[in-house]
């Protein structure tokens, strides 16, 4: 049985690519408009579209239940803004985040912001197993700065920026695997296998 992956639809942006990419990687993804359905899901993806406050407005009503699910170890993946909302606060918004990842989201300090384009990710984690060239697509002005030991990969951009996170079974990526061509597909295949093994 392919793992059923709930993709949270916050009402803005393109979910075609992530849905199709997960399908290609052997999962059975479905789009969830009513956020309460996330609480029943066997695997959750928080896609990388939209802005912090708008996204949190949608998730705020189910916040405590959702965090409980993540703490219980439901396999999940937050992409870009979808990873940032896992943190406690963000300099981008006024709304509090989910607070599942301890730490805050801060503005990039760099000569050019947004950090836009393809950059490499350093990690020992098995989620990048088999990725030939570790270049992934980034498009962000803020990044998560954890205050606990959950950063498992980083990227050089005017200093070292944490770009890959793991806590319990929730991965967070500052990059967009669904926009990262072959490397991204490999990452997502590894994630789907990880989710299958966890459910």
């Amino acid at each position, binding site marked *: 049985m392919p793992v059923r992956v709930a993709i949270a639809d916050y009402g803005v*942006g393109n979910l075609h690519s992530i849905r199709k990419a997960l399908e290609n990687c052997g999962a059975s993804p479905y789009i969830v408009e009513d956020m309460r359905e996330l609480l029943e899901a066997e695997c959750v993806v928080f896609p990388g579209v939209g802005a912090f406050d708008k996204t949190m407005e949608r998730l705020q009503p189910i916040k405590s239940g959702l965090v409980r699910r993540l703490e219980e170890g439901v396999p999940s993946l937050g992409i870009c803004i979808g990873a940032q909302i896992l943190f406690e606060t963000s300099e981008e918004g006024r709304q509090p985040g989910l607070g599942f990842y301890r730490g805050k989201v801060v503005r990039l300090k760099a000569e050019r912001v947004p950090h836009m384009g393809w950059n490499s990710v350093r990690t020992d984690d098995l989620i990048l197993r088999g990725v030939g060239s570790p*270049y992934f*697509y980034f*498009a962000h002005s803020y990044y998560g700065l954890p205050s606990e030991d959950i950063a498992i990969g980083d990227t050089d951009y005017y200093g070292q920026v944490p770009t890959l996170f793991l806590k319990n079974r929730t991965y967070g990526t500052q990059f967009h695997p669904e926009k*990262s061509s072959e490397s991204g597909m490999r990452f997502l295949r590894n994630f789907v296998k990880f989710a299958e093994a966890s459910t």
Partner: protein
Amino acid sequence: MLTKRIIPCLDVRDGVTVKGVNFVNLQEVGEPPAMASAYEAQGADEIVFLDISASAEGRKTLMHVVESTAERLFVPLTVGGGIRSKEDMRTALNAGADKVSVNTVAVQRPEVISECAQDFGRQCVVVAIDAKREGSSWKVYTHGGRRRTDKDAIEWAAMAQDLGAGEILLTSMDADGTKDGYDLPLTEKVAEEVDIPVIASGGCGNAQHIYEVLSRTGAEAALAASIFHYGELTVKQVKDYLRERGVPVR
């Protein structure tokens, strides 16, 4: 290290890719979804669709094309042309665009940049600037290059950034279609002025032109159309050329 991006651009009219010189004499060159996928396979870092349809019907066709493209394209897709409001931008994003470029509407109603950035995130908002030299400066043109404005291109780029643009897509109307190379002085001026990424566009005739604009100016990306569409060069060949000369590419 952040690599420099190579971006094939597809000018799309009524759902078909076309190419012309100085915005006129358009010829059909292929189906956008298949072309986009082929460019991804060659190593393109991103794809841009610019809709140059004259009618509302043509623009509706483009959204179907964007949808079928997004289902099989796994690099970012920027859609522009004919975007007149935040709602148009939402439609394009929901159809499958990752970023949307605004041109004429942003000049007429600059606050649309802020509105879009607030709702969708600034990384989605690309401000496209068509610039033409007048003496020692450049003026902004709108309506697909048909209408001159009094806006200075450099000042406009800075203002667009302050309003919330995530990126500038800068086309030199003087260079566009000539195949004589990018407009290096214009690109350098804009890239110096703003802190957001600048995509250089217009004038690409060979790999050396791409090398020049990426090594001599602050541009983060180079956009090209005809050299790729007519099979003169593949994206991979361009990247090999750049890599041999020390330009970081994926």
